[in-house]
C-alpha cells in the first residue's frame, strides 16, 4: 500500500486530454502546410454560404471559400502568433525576472515598475492601442502580446527565483565562492523551469484568444490569410441568415484554448513538487 502512494509516474488526466487536443491542432496546422481540401484563399462568390456537404465538409463562407481549409490554415496562423508571442515573451521576460531577483534593490524595483506599467492596461486594450498606433497586422499583434507576456513571465520568474535565492544551498554555493551568474544558471534556472513552462503554456492559450479577439475587430491577421477571429467577425453579420458560419471557427477557438489550458493545468499538477509528493494522483 505504501508503495502505491509513493510519487508515481502516473500523469494527470487533464495532461492527457490537453496534450491530445494540442497535438491534434498542431498536426492540423502542419498538414495545412502540405495539403488543404481547397486553397484557403480561393474565392468563388457564386458558391457562397453553402452548408456542410461531401464537397465542402464544413461548408463555404460568404465569399465561397472552403471553411475547413480556412480553419486548417487558421490553426497554423493562430499557433504561429501564439508561439511567437510566447517565445518573445520568454526571451525577454525570463532574463529580466532572473536579473531582478539576482540584482535585488534598484534592479528589482525597475523591473517591477516596468511590469506595473504594462499591467496598468488589460492585454487586449494595450494591444488595441498599439495596433492603432503602429497599424493593424500580425506582426504588431505579436509585438503587443509579447510585451504583455514578457511582463507576466518576468514577474513569475522573479517571484520563483527569489524563493530559490533564499534556499540554504544557494547560500552555501555563494559561500563556496560561486558568482551570482553561476548560481542563477546552475541552481535558480533549473528549479524554476517547471513554473515558467506552465505559465508559458497558459499564456499561449491567452495569446490565441487575444489574437482571435484582435482579428475579430479587424486589427489582427489580415486577409487573404485566414484567421479564426476574422472568420467569427465576418460570421457576425450572418447570424440571422447563415448561423453555421459562426459555429466552426467558434469550436476551433474553444477546442484550441481548452487543449492548451488543460495542458497547462496538467503540467502544473505534474511538475509541482507539492502535488507530486501528495501521492493522490
Amino acid at each position, binding site marked *: 500500500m505504501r508503495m502505491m502512494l509513493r510519487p508515481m509516474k502516473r500523469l494527470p488526466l487533464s495532461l492527457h486530454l490537453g496534450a491530445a487536443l494540442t497535438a491534434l491542432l498542431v498536426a492540423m496546422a502542419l498538414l495545412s502546410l502540405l495539403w488543404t481540401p481547397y486553397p484557403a*484563399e480561393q*474565392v468563388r*462568390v*457564386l458558391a*457562397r*454560404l453553402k452548408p456542410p456537404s461531401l464537397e465542402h465538409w464544413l461548408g463555404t463562407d*460568404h*465569399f465561397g471559400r472552403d471553411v475547413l481549409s480556412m480553419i486548417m490554415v487558421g490553426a497554423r496562423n493562430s499557433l504561429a502568433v501564439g508561439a511567437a508571442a510566447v517565445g518573445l515573451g520568454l526571451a525577454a521576460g525570463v532574463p529580466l525576472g532572473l536579473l531582478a531577483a539576482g540584482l535585488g534593490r534598484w534592479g528589482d524595483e525597475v523591473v517591477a515598475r516596468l511590469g506595473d506599467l504594462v499591467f496598468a492596461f488589460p492585454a487586449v486594450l494595450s494591444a488595441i492601442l498599439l495596433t*492603432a498606433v503602429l*497599424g*493593424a*497586422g500580425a506582426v504588431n499583434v505579436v509585438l503587443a502580446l509579447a510585451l504583455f507576456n514578457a511582463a507576466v513571465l518576468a514577474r513569475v520568474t522573479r517571484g520563483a527565483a527569489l524563493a530559490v535565492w533564499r534556499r540554504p544551498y544557494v547560500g552555501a554555493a555563494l559561500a563556496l565562492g560561486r558568482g551570482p551568474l553561476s548560481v542563477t544558471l546552475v541552481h535558480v534556472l533549473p528549479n524554476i523551469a517547471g513554473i515558467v513552462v506552465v505559465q508559458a503554456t497558459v499564456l499561449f492559450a491567452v495569446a490565441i484568444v487575444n489574437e482571435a479577439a484582435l482579428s475579430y475587430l*479587424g*486589427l489582427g491577421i*489580415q*486577409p*487573404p490569410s485566414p484567421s479564426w477571429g476574422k472568420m467569427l467577425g465576418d460570421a*457576425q*453579420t*450572418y*447570424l*440571422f*441568415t*447563415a448561423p453555421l458560419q459562426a459555429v466552426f471557427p467558434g469550436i476551433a477557438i474553444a477546442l484550441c484554448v481548452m487543449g492548451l489550458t488543460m495542458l497547462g493545468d496538467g503540467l502544473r499538477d505534474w511538475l509541482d513538487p507539492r502535488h507530486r509528493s501528495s501521492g493522490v494522483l
Partner: protein
Amino acid sequence: MPTAKQRFTLAAVAVLVLAAASQAAMAQPRTDLVVGMQLEPPHLDPTAGAAGAIKEVTYANLFEPLLRVNADGALIPALAERWSVSDDGLTYRFTLRPNAKFHDGTTADSADVKFTLDRARAADSVNAQKAYFAPIASVETPDPRSVVVTLSRPDGLFLAHMASGDAAIVAPETAATNKQKPVGTGPFKFDRWVAGDRVVLVRNPDYDGPKPALERVSFRFISDPAAQVAALKAGDVDAFTLFSTYEALPEFRNDPAFKVMVGSTEGETILSTNNARKPFDDVRVRRAMAHAIDRKTLIEGVLYGNGVAIGSHFPPHREGYVDLTGMYPYDPAKAKALLAEAGYPNGFDTTLRLPPPPYARRGGELVAAMLAEVGIRAKIEPVEWAAWLEKTFKGKDYDLTLIAHTEPLDIDIYARPDYYFNYKSERFNALNDELNRTQDQAKRNALYGEEQRVLAEDAVNGFLFMLPSVTVQKANLTGLWVNRPVQANDVTGAAWR
C-alpha cells in the same frame, strides 16, 4: 353594494368600451416614425461638417437651403419660393417665402441668407464644401425678401450647390449653437438628442408651408449589422435607410410585413489609385488592373447583386451618362500581358488601405483576391475614418484605397490639382473649364460624356459600381425616398397608410 352579477356586467362593459377605444385608436394612422441609421452624426450643423449622417437627419426636415432637391433629384423651392438667373449666368436673384420663420420665432429674411453665404465663403469658414461658395463675388439684400448673388465666374452647378445641405440657411443668433441645438426653418424642429441612441424631431406647428403628416420622428443609430436586422424584425425601428446588410434582403422581401426598396445613390465606388506613385503612374499598369477586376462578381459578392457597374466616374441614372463598362472587359490574361509590357512580368507588391464601411472592407478583400490572380499582391490595411482622412485623403500617402464618392456630380474632382488621386490631365482640365462656361444642357451633357471617356481611357481609378440606396421599411409606410440624389432622410412626405 353591487351584486356579483352587476359587478361582472360593469367589468364586461368596461372591457368593451376599452376595446372599442383601442379599435378607434388603431383606425387612426400612427403619427410617429422611427428611422434607423447606421452612423450617428458627430453634431447637427450641416454647414460645418462633411459627415453624411448630419444631413441625413437635418436636410429638408430641420434645415432648408434656398432651394432643395426632391426625391427625383429635381431642384424645387425651399426657403426661396422662386429664383432667376441672368443671361450671362453671373447674377442670381432669389425671392424668399413671405412668412418663413426660424424655430426660435425670428423671421427668416434676406439678412439671414447673406449671413449664411458670407459665413460659408469666409476665410475662416469651416464649411465642408467651401468650394461651392467660392464663385460668389457679392451678396446683396435689396429688401427683406430678395437676395441677389453675383458670381465672379459662371458656374453651371451653382443652383445645385445652393440646394445642398452645406448651403442650409442659418440665423446669426443661433449659428454658433446649431451643432448641439439646431435651429432651422424646416417643417420639423429639434426636440432632443440622446447621445449614442437617437435624435428626436417634432413637427413645427408654425411652419408656413404644407404640414407634414408625422408629428414625431426619431432617428435611431444602430451600427451593428445583426442588430439592425433584429431591430427591424422586433419593430424597434419602422424603417432602415442605407441598409447595408444585403444578405438579409431576401428574407425581408419574402415577408409581407416589410417592403424593400433598392434605388440609386450618387456614390461612385472606386478603387482610388495614387496616379503619382510608381507603378501606378504607368497607364498600362492601371489598365491591367481594370482588366483584372471582375465587376460582376464583385457586385455579387459585396452587394448581393444590388448594384450597377460603372466604367467611369458618373452615375448611370444621370443625364449625360455614357456606358463605358465594356472598355476593359474582365480578362486576367490581358492584364498579365499589360503588366509584363509595363515591366512587371511577375507582378508587384502594393498596399490597399480600407476605410470601415462594409462595402469597402468586403470589396477590398475581393479586389485584393482578383489582383492576386494577375500577380499584384495587395497587402490589406484596414484603417479608421480619421486615419483614412488624415493619411489618404489629405496626406495623399497611399497606393490604393477603396471608397464611394457620394457627392452628386463630382466628376470635377479630377480637375482639382491637389486632389488625392494625383491625376493631372490637360485634356480633362480643358473639358472641365469649358463645362463651367457652358449653360446649355445638351452641350453640358456632351461634355460630361467626353470627360467620362477621358477618365476611362486613362483608367485613372478602378471604376467599380454604384452604391445602392437600400431601404427596408414596414409595408404600410409611404413617402420615403427610393433613390438618394442627395444625402437625406426626407421625412416631410412620409405617412402611415
